[in-house]
């Protein structure tokens, strides 16, 4: 009957990538700006350092992306990261556990915590904010009960993981954590775009009620996203333990905000249903590059640091909106 082979429609499918392209372009713009402004900034290693310094945040933000795509939120990530570093450190340093076993245990612990929160959110119909806030209290509280001191990690496995560089051409290097983080990103992107679970995540974000009426496994998927987030947080904790070689209850305070900010800056909508994992990667890089710009500047006092971080964020976000709007 009525057919529609309208040009506008064909581009419509592609138009949804515009915001993300805009973000990428702006990010490159920021880098170029830094490179012209500060010597040594243009060095390829600076870019890689951003990855090295943010590998754990990237992993945590990946988990957060799943949760936010369903329209939820997970405030517990920072605390779970801290708990993971501390549990790892305690088990290895105080109990003499081998590194890989500790990692396995920590990952299971993170996943179980996430699963517990997901189950409570789904079955008792509670708001994710409050449940994961309680989860945050719980994980942080557990950390304090384990130890209020920070514990150094001397375990051979961890130190090797932390200090073995992965060589790239041109005298460039990254850490093993970066490789792990990128693998996680790839897996997560695959899951989101090429599996039914991934598509159900988007469906729930679009309308949980519709997803339920469409016969999708809402309960399973909702619990799964919190499990994934817990798992990613625990892995983020392991990476942070590689990064700092220490366990500390005060690690990653406020990281949940960084992770949420990265996800949202990357174009994912907080109410769920729209966004891409690649956007999250860009979001993390934006936060990282802002930080790097500021350290390279090195003239800002403590408060000006904060003001300038906010200002750069503002400029970035406003430009992102303007560019995306113009392009559409």
């Amino acid at each position: 009957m009525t057919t529609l082979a309208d040009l506008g429609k064909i581009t419509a499918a592609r138009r949804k990538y515009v915001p993300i392209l805009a973000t990428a372009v702006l990010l490159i713009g920021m880098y170029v700006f830094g490179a012209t402004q500060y010597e040594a900034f243009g060095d390829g290693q600076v870019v890689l350092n951003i990855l090295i310094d943010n590998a754990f945040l990237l992993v945590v933000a990946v988990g957060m992306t799943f949760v936010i795509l369903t329209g939820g939120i997970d405030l517990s990530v920072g605390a779970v990261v801290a708990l993971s570093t501390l549990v790892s450190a305690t088990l290895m340093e105080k109990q003499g556990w081998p590194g890989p076993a500790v990692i396995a245990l920590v990952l299971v612990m993170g996943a179980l915590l996430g699963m517990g929160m997901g189950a409570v959110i789904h079955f008792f119909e509670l708001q994710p904010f409050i449940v994961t806030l309680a989860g945050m209290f719980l994980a942080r509280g557990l950390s304090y009960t384990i130890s209020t001191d920070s514990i150094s990690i001397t375990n051979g496995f961890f130190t090797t993981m932390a200090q073995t560089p992965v060589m790239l051409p041109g005298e460039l290097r990254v850490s093993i954590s970066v490789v792990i983080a990128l693998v996680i990103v790839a897996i997560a992107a695959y899951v989101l775009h090429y599996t039914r679970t991934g598509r159900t995540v988007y469906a729930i974000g679009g309308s949980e009620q519709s997803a339920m009426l469409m016969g999708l496994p809402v309960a399973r998927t909702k619990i799964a996203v919190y499990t994934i987030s817990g798992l990613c947080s625990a892995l983020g904790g392991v990476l942070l333990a590689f990064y700092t070689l220490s366990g500390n209850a005060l690690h990653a305070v406020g990281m949940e905000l960084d992770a949420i900010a990265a996800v949202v800056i990357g174009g994912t909508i907080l109410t769920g249903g729209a966004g891409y994992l690649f956007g999250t990667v860009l979001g993390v890089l934006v936060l990282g590059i802002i930080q790097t710009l500021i350290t390279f500047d090195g003239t800002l006092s403590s408060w000006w640091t904060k003001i300038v971080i906010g200002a750069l964020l503002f400029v970035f976000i406003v430009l992102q909106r303007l560019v995306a709007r113009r392009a559409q």
Partner: protein
Amino acid sequence: GNAGTPAGGGGASGTNSGSSGPITLGFAQVGAESGWRTANTKSIQESAKTAGIELKFSDAQQKQENQIKAIRSFIQQKVKVIAFSPVVESGWDTVLKEAKTANIPVVLTDRAIDSPDTSLYKTFLGSDFVKEGKKAGDWLVKETASATGDVNIVELQGTTGSAPANDRKKGFADAIAAQPKLKIVASQTGEFTRAKGKEVMEAFLKSQPKIDVLFAHNDDMGLGAIEAIEAAGKKPGVDIKIVTIDAVKDGMQALSDGKINYIVECNPLLGPQLMDLVKKVSAGESVPQRIETEETEFDQAKAKAALPQRQY
């Protein structure tokens, strides 16, 4: 150990002694979480200027990750010396090894690190938090030497898990351990702030039938607590003896007003000492492994005398 995560070009090109300009110092500060810290920052900035040292300053906003990032970027920028006040004691080996491979000497300020490999840094300049707690405890032991019966102490701790809180608590507890009559009846975190100090003290005043002494991990919490004590109709410094740590100006004022009984100084003005060290270190001179800042204690009389010159 090998240089772990990349030191980049800096690591590869090795030494940086060729440059002839002023010494560049990369300083990674904890944050600006208290007046004490701000005074510390200001002292460093000002003395760098007078010493003709080019300062690259970075504020980590109380996050270890940020500090590591900053140090890494200092290495990237090939500064001559790196100095930092560690947010926590542990977790510095990787990045300090990178600095070592890049031949950049490191000076620790204010707080120590717990790395067994002392070759990672040239020297430590700062205070000993355990000792500060101990000094407060020692004073109390002396002060209550004549007292008969129990002395009930309440403690306002710093931010849970932070190094000063852990150490001051420990030093104080050690000092009074031998005195069974000295009892810590309540101990709670006041997060180093006046507001929390006041709020917690209000609760203590209601839950504890008898409080003789307040030990606060810093002046600010003590100042907050004073307001709570006054609101409860008691006289701070008289009905309840107060001992605190830091000796910031407001604290000294309260001390000379008789509202605080004793303050252990924790000196933030280590800029001049640091610049001396930086010059020595970059010239390759040897320096002691550990330098403690000059710190005193104040009682009410000494406070009155010192107050006019107090600048922070």
